[in-house]
């Protein structure tokens, strides 16, 4: 036990010197207090996001990591069984097929979108560029039920183009992985154009002139200047397209519903609809967590690439 009385233990408010000291202290402390209280105004937002984003995400993770107790089906026990199940059988088929479709769709859309963006710049038409800028941001957001319906009308079983081009005889069917890839291009190509067009347009004329003045050919310019600058945007575009295809649910569901093509999004659907009799609901939750992880990876790869590509144009 020590006899030393520290300053904060001393009773304040009696001695004028102490009061002055307190005042000075409080003046100094003020900014700190304001900082501590500064998030008060954010509380309504934080409560909202906790309820409508935090709770469901917590819910899906919690449900993914538990299974019904064998001895007492009303109770749940922590388990990795759902994740094990998500990498087996039909769930794993769906995951693999989703990944495969997304890679092919992203490569297709990325290459076409890149070529299209360059083609648009090659025309040097300002009007066309302006129209394309608006259209791409609209089409990149299109999708869902109307997209599926218009493709059914065009190249579905009784579609107009199906009849005109006798696609069925050629072995084409919209209700397949290939059909989905074809349909996804509707929003993937515009997304790619939206991502790479500003970068390609930003490859400054001066750079091209400089390259030309030292005798560079078109091939040299693209190899040494154009592509290195455009690469982050192009890679970012591919990654973004992959993520968009992988997460697509609405148009795929409207097109093929429950059967036909296995997809991770549709697998979650059927797991939820089936109820928890066979524990399928919790496997669906594990699939949902797997999807979140994939989307997180996509974002973590995309963001630095985007930052890198913006660097040249600031």
């Amino acid at each position: 036990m020590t006899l030393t009385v520290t300053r904060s233990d001393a009773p304040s408010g009696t001695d004028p010197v102490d009061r002055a000291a307190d005042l000075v202290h409080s003046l100094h402390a003020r900014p700190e207090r304001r900082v501590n209280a500064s998030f008060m105004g954010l509380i309504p937002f934080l409560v909202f996001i906790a309820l409508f984003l935090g709770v469901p995400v917590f819910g899906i993770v919690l449900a993914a990591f538990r299974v019904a107790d064998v001895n007492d089906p009303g109770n749940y026990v922590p388990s990795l069984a759902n994740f094990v199940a998500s990498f087996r059988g039909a769930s794993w088929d769906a995951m693999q097929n989703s990944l495969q479709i997304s890679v092919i769709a992203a490569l297709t859309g990325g290459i076409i979108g890149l070529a299209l963006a360059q083609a648009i710049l090659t025309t040097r038409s300002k009007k066309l560029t302006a129209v394309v800028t608006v259209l791409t941001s609209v089409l990149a957001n299109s999708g869902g039920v109307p997209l599926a319906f218009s493709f059914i009308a065009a190249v579905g079983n009784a579609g107009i183009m199906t009849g005109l081009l006798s696609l069925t005889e050629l072995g084409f069917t919209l209700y397949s992985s290939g059909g989905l890839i074809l349909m996804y291009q509707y929003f993937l190509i515009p997304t790619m154009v939206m991502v790479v067009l500003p970068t390609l347009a930003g490859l400054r004329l001066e750079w091209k002139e400089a390259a030309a003045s030292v005798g560079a050919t078109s091939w040299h310019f693209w190899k040494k200047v154009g592509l290195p600058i455009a690469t982050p945007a192009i890679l970012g575009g591919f990654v973004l397209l992959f993520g968009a295809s992988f997460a697509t649910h609405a148009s795929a569901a409207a097109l093929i519903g429950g059967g036909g093509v296995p997809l991770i999004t549709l697998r979650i659907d059927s797991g939820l609809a089936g109820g928890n009799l066979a524990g399928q609901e919790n496997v669906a939750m594990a699939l949902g967590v797997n999807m979140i992880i994939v989307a997180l990876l996509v974002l973590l790869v995309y963001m630095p690439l985007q930052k890198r590509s913006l660097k040249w144009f600031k």
Partner: protein
Amino acid sequence: MVQMRQSTRAARGIRVVAPGLSWALIILVALYIAVPMICALAFSIYVPTTGFTFEPYVESVRDPGFFGALSLTLLITVLTVVGLLAIMVPTMVYLHLKAPRWRPVMEILCTIPLVVPSIALAAGLVTVLRSMASFGRGSAPAQISQLLQNPDLPIVLVGSYIVLTLPFVFRSLDAGLRTIDLRTLVESAHSLGASGATVLRRVVLPNIKGPVIFCTFFCIALCLGEFTMAVTLGYRTLPVWLTQIAGSNFRASISMSLLINALTWALLIAMTVLAGRAAPARALALKGHES
């Protein structure tokens, strides 16, 4: 001078594709974009047995489920827009004025919806609502679960739609607030005796009108087209109703789907034109949850 021109010409000559090929590609992609829409339109106004007709449009409106789906969708849309603006405008203004330190945290929070696919968000909500309901009839969790899922006023859907718009809305409002001298505006309004609400309504809002309209249009477009969350949570909004009648009357469903699509596109076009040239940074936020 002559030399300069020559070098410019040489530089311009740097092309990856020849102009002819460029136009060929542009026309091909334009066809790919246009053909499905034209086919859908043809489907909705031309019936092989009767010729040109608007019958599918009439039939879709006459469907017993139509008005229920329409009014539910409109109600959700209005509530989502109002809720979104009521939460996000004051929060973003506050963030810029009083709590700039929290901006990185807010940015991360508002970006999270991008990594939670809407089917996963819906699955999470379903499991939470089901386990709350399993507490038994009359218990508090079950009652909250019921309240959130009120069939006439699906609060759970409104809240989720607000969440889905957050990545986009945060960026848009954040950029808008950065371009104005918010502090000076607010302080001078206060010194003239305006209250907090008045400042927000009459000083801040008119200065961020562009981003606010932008967010509103985006939000409406999302609410009109969103399918995944609505169908998973069991609500018969317009897109869900469309898929339900497609089996029995595809022409009716496609005609209504065209109308909804036209409205959505009009909103998105208006939004993009209003915002001027889309910045590349917007690409990520724009990639919506509708696909």
